[in-house]
């Protein structure tokens, strides 16, 4: 069986505009989009560039837009696109370096900005000691869902608010902040709140909800972001009452 796969190419040394190129790829029931890209690079066109590593939806490096929807290339199969055909484009809302390679720099700085690590109670340092930090199942349950993020960035490509304003800290970063705020071992909420409270924090979100739809790990970032709005609103009330700021 063969399927025509169209890819949006961008080769800055050849032309300043992206263009579409189609390839005919043989496939069977187990051929993923990532397999198809590998086939194209190895057999048809060595100039094609794309990212991948684990091939099993864990590393989060193979994100693409497939017919306009953000997806992991290794997590989706050609057999399901026989009717619709396939258009593969680089992940939306990010600068494109070449072909399917995007510049993730802004995503990484956004993640960093929320201090996504345990901040201990007694010092401002992140937890360094080797003492065990025991947790009950209930304490774990509070944040566990929000901790399965693989930093693939698909939610950023799904988020029109990030598309409209790249300064928006975005779904995955806010989810990570919320995840640590919910962790009973962490004492860093006060340090994360200024970011969350700002316009570029939780308040840029209008609950479009598409981020949660495309998330390959069912993290539900939209829920985390909107729970953060409740946290932020509470924080404002506390600061007005003269409590913590």
């Amino acid at each position, binding site marked *: 069986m063969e399927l025509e796969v169209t890819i949006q190419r961008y080769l800055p040394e050849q032309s300043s505009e992206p263009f579409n190129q189609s390839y005919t790829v043989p496939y069977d029931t187990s051929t993923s989009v990532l397999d198809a890209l590998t086939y194209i690079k190895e057999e048809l066109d060595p100039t094609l560039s794309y990212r991948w590593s684990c091939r099993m939806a864990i590393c989060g490096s193979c994100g693409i837009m497939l017919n306009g929807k953000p997806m992991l290339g290794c997590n989706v199969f050609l057999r399901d696109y026989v009717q619709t055909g396939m258009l593969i484009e680089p992940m939306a809302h990010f600068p494109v370096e070449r072909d399917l390679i995007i510049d993730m720099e802004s995503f990484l700085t956004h993640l960093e900005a929320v201090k996504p690590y345990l901040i201990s109670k007694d010092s401002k340092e992140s937890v360094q000691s080797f003492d065990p930090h025991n947790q009950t199942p209930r304490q774990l349950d509070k944040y566990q869902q929000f901790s399965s993020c693989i930093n693939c960035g698909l939610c950023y490509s799904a988020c029109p608010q990030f598309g409209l304003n*790249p300064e928006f800290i975005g779904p995955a970063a806010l989810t990570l902040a919320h995840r640590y705020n919910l962790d009973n071992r962490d004492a860093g909420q006060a340090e994360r709140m200024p970011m969350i409270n700002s316009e570029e924090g939780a308040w840029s979100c209008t609950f479009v*909800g598409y981020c949660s739809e495309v998330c390959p790990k069912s993290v539900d970032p939209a829920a985390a972001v909107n729970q953060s*709005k409740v946290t932020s609103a509470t924080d404002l009330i506390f600061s007005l009452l003269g409590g913590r700021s």
Partner: protein
Amino acid sequence: MSYRPTLTRTWWLKNTAFKVYMLRELTVLPLLFFLLCLVKGLYSLSQGAEAWYLWLAVMQNPLVMLINTLALLASLFHAWTFFQLFPRVMPLEFGGKKVSAPALVAGQWAGVLAVFALVAWLFWG
């Protein structure tokens, strides 16, 4: 060397999820129209019986009724979306256990019915 495509005004026409989102946001337009009707009604009521019955007549205008029918549909669509968001934004616990999302959604629809019963009783009771 890299390029960053910018979103156009019509980005939301590009996929179904975004169209549904825009539809949800636009439910507030017929709502706003209905609210203006209410404020006008309240004003007429303060101006005496004649003004009040005049307002009732305006409410019978087919175009007004058409928009208010849209407002009714909009309120139901809004309710459908809003009730689903609630358990995600404010997950509730009861006796140490998370209340299930379907239970919370059902509870909110029960609220809609209760209000309906109340208003019906005010008019018919």
